């Protein structure tokens, strides 16, 4: 298993010592780890494509400055067996390489690329606002709105 894939898997599946993270309220002195931030981002990312079907678990997140990860987990209705699939979208110059299990590689275009552009744009905009509290256009900190 490649190092990148291993990192992605650990971020998705977590480890036995990890706490189940929700929004970081009431934790003023605990430092954010990369994994916690990724989980917060992925909570937003998983909803970008609409409702997750019942019995499915979905993750969509930016792994690093060149990689997007889509992960979907579900139970096969016939066999009851747990199924999952991971797709990695890698930025190669100005093209996007789709990497799937079974050593399947293809540069994407057409509707799939259009959908990925929309999803990643929306992801950055929402994550910037709701996780990092900055304006996605200007990069300036958003001032919290006082409750009226």
């Amino acid at each position, binding site marked *: 298993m490649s190092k990148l894939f291993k990192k992605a898997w650990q971020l998705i599946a977590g480890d036995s010592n990890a706490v189940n993270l929700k929004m970081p309220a009431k934790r003023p*002195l605990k430092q*954010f780890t990369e994994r916690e931030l990724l989980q917060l981002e992925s909570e937003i990312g998983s909803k970008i494509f609409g409702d997750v079907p019942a019995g499915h678990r979905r993750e969509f997140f930016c792994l690093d*400055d060149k990689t997007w990860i889509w992960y979907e987990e579900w139970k096969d209705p016939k066999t009851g067996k747990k199924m999952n699939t991971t797709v990695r979208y890698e*930025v190669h110059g100005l093209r996007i390489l789709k990497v799937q299990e079974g050593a399947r590689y293809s540069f994407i275009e057409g509707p799939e690329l259009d959908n990925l552009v929309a999803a*990643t*744009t929306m992801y*950055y905009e929402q994550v910037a606002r709701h996780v*990092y509290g900055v304006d996605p256009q200007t990069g300036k900190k*958003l*001032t919290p709105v006082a409750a009226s």
Partner: protein
Amino acid sequence: MRPKNPEILHYEQTSSTHEGAILSDGDGADFHNPFRSAELRSLNEAQQIRADADARPRPERPLTPVEESGLRVGRSAVNTAILRSRTVGLTQADFELAAGE
């Protein structure tokens, strides 16, 4: 515990996201502040990500629609990675202080 000089106290009370030099405790030794260290490390990483992205080669000709889309996907990844790397190691308190600036 020795008393802290006013400059350090001011720093601790106000600084969480300001860029700048590593503070010294006045007698030549580096003033160790783990929050500040994490912040500086994060800022360096963020700058490195930006530098790497800027160094990626671009053709002189106009981009094709597919390339334009690829550029946008890459740009969202770079921007997200920069925000994340600037935040890793910060605390919620640092974060809220920064939001109030």
